[in-house]
């Protein structure tokens, strides 16, 4: 008998409404309910835990046959996981806590799921993915589907699912960056101490910052990476002039400073339309004509992908992601000499964070920004910064390029921040990508979707206990660095037969040179093989009619469903759960134009010529009852983005300018 059963369950509270929820949870199981960070998941969590606030209206049936429910919120830690509960409801467990605490909590939850049913409510799809959980997706107040996390990659027919899945990694690409020039900010030996209580009588003063020194040059984006309470906010406030240093000197070129705060809800006066707040930076420039002011306003708002009509709304009418982009627009209106961003993605869900960073990268190019970005997440600073400073307990402990820090972190704190991940430790596709970088001698523009696919494979490999019924098969991911450098480039993965969808449109729809296929791993002794295992995908494939939703896509992957005539795979370098290894051929084609020009054709399996392979039967195309959502409002932007990215690739071999997150370690 099911431990928890919801039938046609719904609940409404304020503007948040969920309805028609059918959900069954068995004892001693683990489920992740993934939704946007809009309160709907939290409301459902509260409803299941029986903790609905006053004024919440519930309907339908919710039956719980156990005795004790344990409710955990984001503040709870591992000590709160008690053994005697039959149902554990965890709302954003460990979100915003430091990685070690979160890891401990999630591990405890995993252990508890041997005896109790554990439901994790989160906006972070990566959590479910890396823990290999079964996922129920909550979108627009309804449960869309329920499937193992790794499979959701293959079922991209739901807009929201794709949105959530897309939020899995932060990826942006710098375009036409302004040349880096003279220093415009010099911070020299700056310290800031806070006195507590009366001088000499109270407790000793707190040192928030000690001996900080660095410079920021024109056109440069410096990332400040540090855990909570490391002094990031203090540093930015000092630089902005909102606070005075206790010692040291801050030299800044005169001019406006743009500032983006962590919580956009607090950064706007709640009683004024956002448009009023956005005009503030223009008031100092008395010389500007009214038309020019309006132009500046509209420019800034458009640059962050929002409609000028939204300016008449109060901040409460915005979602967090949009409001934070409005905050970015406000910072841009005054054409600041220096832009400071204080943990700008802290309050955003992963998809919103990704959008924000995409727009930030874009305005950086458009406005020629100089900026300091502080964050506790490596993926965030890595995505936008040229150079990082690692801040710990008020000291700069390390600095360098993002790649240097992730490859060879010198400090423990850097190592921790760079490798933040969820349990169980998942084997990511780092190795092949790094090998590719090294061999090519370039930071190669790696196809984003390819990484998604590779990671999907690895996520399946890392599942600690195979889900009963789901076949575990081995796959080999081969990377040929040379092939990647020469576009179209190729990543090969041998694995199971049914097609995987990397998210990109099929190459058939675009006139591109045939990709160089490598079907025999043995034929390429120079390539570095990395062994990963993939779960057997579901036999059904849903067509992917839209262009890859990723912004500024720099390449497209096509994973061809190919069965090798001889299913021989080299022995995996690392032991993985591989009952019956089957080869799968995955191939990446670096294909920028496809992102912008791909038509919404029916995908057809790629039939590579001249390779010793057989194609599998046509995948059964499921005519989904769910209407395919129209492209999001950003579609045009994405297309434009793709075009720009193409220009960047065509024009220069500035592959080093690409910033991606091959590690896929951190986001949100």
């Amino acid at each position: 008998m099911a431990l928890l059963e919801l039938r046609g369950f719904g609940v409404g509270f304020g503007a948040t409404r969920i309805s028609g929820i059918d959900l069954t949870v068995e004892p001693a199981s683990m489920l992740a309910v993934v939704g946007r960070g809009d309160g709907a998941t939290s409301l459902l969590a509260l409803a299941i835990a029986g903790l609905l606030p006053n004024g919440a209206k519930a309907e339908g049936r919710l039956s719980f046959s156990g005795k004790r429910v344990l409710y955990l919120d984001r503040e709870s830690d591992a000590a709160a996981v008690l053994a005697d509960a039959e149902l554990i409801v965890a709302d954003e467990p460990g979100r915003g806590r430091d990685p070690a605490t979160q890891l401990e909590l999630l591990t405890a939850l995993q252990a508890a799921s041997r005896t109790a049913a554990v439901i994790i409510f989160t906006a972070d799809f990566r959590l479910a993915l890396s823990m290999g959980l079964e996922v129920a997706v909550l979108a627009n107040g309804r449960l869309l589907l329920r499937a193992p996390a790794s499979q959701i990659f293959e079922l991209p027919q739901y807009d929201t699912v794709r949105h959530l899945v897309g939020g899995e990694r932060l990826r942006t690409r710098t375009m036409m960056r302004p040349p880096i020039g003279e220093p415009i900010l010099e911070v020299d030996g700056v310290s800031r101490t806070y006195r507590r209580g009366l001088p000499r009588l109270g407790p000793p003063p707190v040192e928030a910052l000690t001996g900080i020194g660095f410079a920021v040059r024109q056109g440069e984006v410096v990332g400040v990476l540090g855990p909570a309470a490391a002094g990031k906010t203090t540093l930015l406030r000092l630089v902005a002039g909102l606070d005075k240093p206790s010692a040291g000197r801050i030299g800044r070129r005169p001019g406006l400073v743009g500032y983006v705060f962590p919580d956009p809800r607090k950064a706007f006066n709640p009683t004024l339309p956002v448009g009023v707040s956005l005009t503030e930076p223009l008031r100092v420039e008395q010389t500007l004509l009214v038309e020019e002011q309006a132009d500046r306003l509209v420019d800034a708002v458009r640059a962050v992908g929002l409609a000028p009509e939204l300016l008449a709304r109060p901040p409460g009418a915005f979602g967090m992601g949009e409001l934070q982009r409005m905050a970015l627009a406000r910072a841009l209106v005054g054409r600041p000499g220096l832009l400071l961003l204080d943990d700008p993605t802290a309050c955003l869900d992963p998809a919103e964070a990704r959008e924000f960073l995409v727009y930030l990268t874009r305005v950086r190019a458009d406005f020629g920004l100089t900026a300091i970005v502080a964050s506790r997440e490596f993926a965030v600073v890595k995505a936008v910064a040229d150079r990082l400073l690692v801040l710990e307990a008020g000291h700069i402990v390390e600095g360098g390029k993002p790649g240097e820090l992730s490859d060879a972190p010198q400090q423990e704190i850097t190592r921790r921040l760079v490798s933040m991940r969820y349990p169980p430790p998942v084997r990511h596709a780092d190795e092949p990508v790094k090998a590719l970088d090294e061999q090519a001698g370039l930071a190669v523009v790696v196809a984003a979707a390819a990484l998604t696919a590779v990671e999907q494979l690895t996520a399946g490999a890392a599942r600690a206990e195979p889900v009963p019924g789901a076949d575990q098969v081995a796959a080999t991911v081969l990377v040929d660095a040379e092939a990647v450098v020469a576009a179209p480039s190729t990543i090969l993965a041998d694995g199971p037969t049914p097609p995987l969808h990397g998210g990109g449109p099929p190459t058939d729809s675009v006139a591109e040179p045939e990709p160089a296929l490598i079907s025999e791993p043995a034929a390429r002794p120079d390539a570095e093989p990395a062994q990963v295992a993939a779960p057997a995908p579901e036999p059904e494939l849903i067509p992917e009619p839209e262009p890859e939703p990723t912004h500024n896509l720099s390449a497209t992957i096509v994973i061809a469903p190919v069965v090798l005539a001889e299913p021989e795979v080299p022995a995996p370098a690392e032991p993985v759960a591989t009952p019956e290894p089957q080869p799968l051929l995955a191939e990446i084609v670096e294909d920028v134009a496809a992102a912008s020009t791909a038509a919404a054709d029916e995908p057809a399996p790629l039939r590579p010529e001249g390779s010793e392979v057989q194609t599998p039967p046509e995948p059964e195309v499921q005519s989904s009852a769910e209407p395919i959502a129209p492209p999001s409002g950003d579609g045009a932007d994405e297309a434009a983005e793709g075009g720009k990215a193409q220009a960047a690739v065509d024009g220069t071999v500035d592959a080093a300018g690409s910033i991606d997150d091959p590690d896929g370690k951190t986001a949100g």
Partner: protein
Amino acid sequence: MSATPPPRGRLQAGSGVALAAIIALLALISLVWTPHGGVPGSATALAEPGAAHWLGTDQTGRDVVSALMSATLTSLLLAWFATLVSLVVGIPLGTLLAARLGPGATRQLVLIGILPAALCLGAIFGGLRLQTTLSVFLAIGLPGAIAATIGSRSIMAPVLAAEYVAAARLAGLGWLGAGQRHVVPMVLPGLIALGLDLLAAALLIEVTLSFAGLGVDGSGLSLGTMLRDGQQLAQARPLLVVAPGAVAVVTALALLMAASGLRETRRGIA
């Protein structure tokens, strides 16, 4: 989150203000007109309530309704000026503290807490033989100023530290512009509510001090002195005590209700 205040707070604030305004209006009318002039000896002493004297007359032959109107005016004026002084001293001090030290530990000030302090001060000033009205004024004003300082600090601090204020400062508006645009509109309702609270407390303090003989001097007419004088005849003519007591309590409650309603409308708006 919503910018529209909940109607309950508005209704509450509106009723409180309306009630207090009616009482204040009646008190002000006493300057130009009262039913019977309110002069001692103008009528039979201790007359029963009736058509001629709605609430009867007191032992000096004064019409109680007329006396109440004048007494309310005296009490309100005393409380008003003492509160004004409290706010004029307290708000700048509180703002300074908020700007320098941030929010204090006390979020909500229990205004009733200033009563004992005020009574002690009233007794001390009485012992010092200060002019009695001045002593009431000081007894209310001094603890009131402290209360206003603490109260306004807790109102100002979160707004001064608000990120939208910082954003306005960085946008080039400076403290002055940011204060005008963001701080003042945001804190004004809270400060008004604080003033209304203080006014209610001041009224009750005046009544208490005068009742104890430490307030408005013997010949003066306030709600407190009316209570004191009526008390001797409370057995025979309970109305002489009930009427001024009721006016004092209802006025104070109306002010507190207005203050609380005003705060209610601002709930959820930081």
